[in-house]
């Protein structure tokens, strides 16, 4: 029996809009993942510590404030410093296409813009999960 995929959904920075993050968290729960949700207005330090302490497979960052170019790479850097080498980081929210390549380069492997069907997100999670982990069979 495989273990369940663990995912941290987090919102860095001064951004109080978490309907999207909650929707993603809820959908991934229904797909069978164990989701840790830490709420709004988190510092990159707090998010990185949570990701490592919770030993998650994925870290999903949501940002609608426009500060993603600053915050997302900072989170990735801190996660790696704390020893979370294998954690796959993805991002979502209002992120202009022109920022995607830079974020990818900074270690945000996948970016999901507004209107992304949830099935796309689930497919990416499924494909990139560790071999011993799964969503609902």
């Amino acid at each position, binding site marked *: *029996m495989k*273990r*369940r995929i663990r995912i941290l959904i987090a919102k860095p920075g001064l951004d109080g809009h978490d309907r999207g993050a909650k929707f993603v*968290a*809820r959908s*991934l*729960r*229904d*797909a*069978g*993942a*164990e*989701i*840790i*949700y*830490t*709420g709004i207005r*988190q*510092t990159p*330090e*707090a998010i*990185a*510590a*949570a990701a*490592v*302490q*919770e*030993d998650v497979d994925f870290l999903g960052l949501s940002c609608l404030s426009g500060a993603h170019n600053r915050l997302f790479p900072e989170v990735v850097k801190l996660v790696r410093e*704390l*020893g*979370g080498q294998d954690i796959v980081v993805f991002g979502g929210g209002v992120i202009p296409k022109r920022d995607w390549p830079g974020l990818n380069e900074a270690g945000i492997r996948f970016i999901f813009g507004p209107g992304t069907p949830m099935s796309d997100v689930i497919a990416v999670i499924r494909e990139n999960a560790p071999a*011993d982990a799964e*969503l*609902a069979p």
Partner: protein
Amino acid sequence: MQPDPEMLVRGIRDRNQQAVARAISIIADRRPGWESLLDAVGKEPRTATFIGITGAPGSGKSTLADAITSFYRAGNRRVGIVAVDPSSPFSGGAILGDRLRMQDHAGDPDVFIRSMASRGRLGGLAPATAETAAILAMAGYDPVIIETVGVGQSEVDVMSVADVVLMVLVPGNGDSIQALKAGVMEIGDLFVLNQADRPGSDRLLAEVNAALRLSGDEDCLSRVFQTVATEGRGVPEVATGIDAFLGSLQSDAEKAASRRERQFLRLVNLAVHDMTDEAFEAYRKSGCAPTEGGTSWSEAVRVATGFLDWLRTRPN
């Protein structure tokens, strides 16, 4: 890559967060090497105090855990927290949201918070909660706070893990007869009446005191506390109450013996849980299931008999 148990144990002792986190996953998920790691953790004599927090959903367990953590941090103690939330009976997924109430300590390396999903267990804890607490203790976190899922009336597993159980109650959850019932109300060592700024709090206090006095506890006033956890009000008194309770209990030798016994019982429990899973898997593979999908008790008995026969004759 399979991590070396000895290196992990060293990492835990060195208080490396990543090693602690991975060790917990290995045991909780039964990843390769979990048995030897569990043995290494079990050998460690525990000195850390395990504080259980239980109560209904929304009563403020996480907020109280957060407030108690602030209190101990002010005294420079390192605090571990294991917080359990329910798994979905449908998808097996879970939303673990207890961390949300513990933001004061996010990023503090001397506070280690681990969220766990109950994974089908009905007793209010996750299958490897005790072992997770033991790993945190090994990494020098003392106390370790264990927060149950939001309980109803019969989720009492926390009493077999914690040294002291805080039962969190809030005003407005039923009349005095609720405080008399068996089950969860019996396992509280201390009663924390949270949200004491809400109407009905004094009435709750009177009812709980009356219920405890009925059960022969004349000294019940020392076991009941009123708090407003969001503001930290009443929390120092709870911490003092915890120390007084633990001090009144037994000698250190008796305490250690009781811990050992409970710890072993937990391991037996864990083994039973594994065997139940295994039996379920075996049943699915056995071919004993009724083809039409069974509904009646007599059918269930017939299937169970067939399944037991299959187990007895099955080559290993």
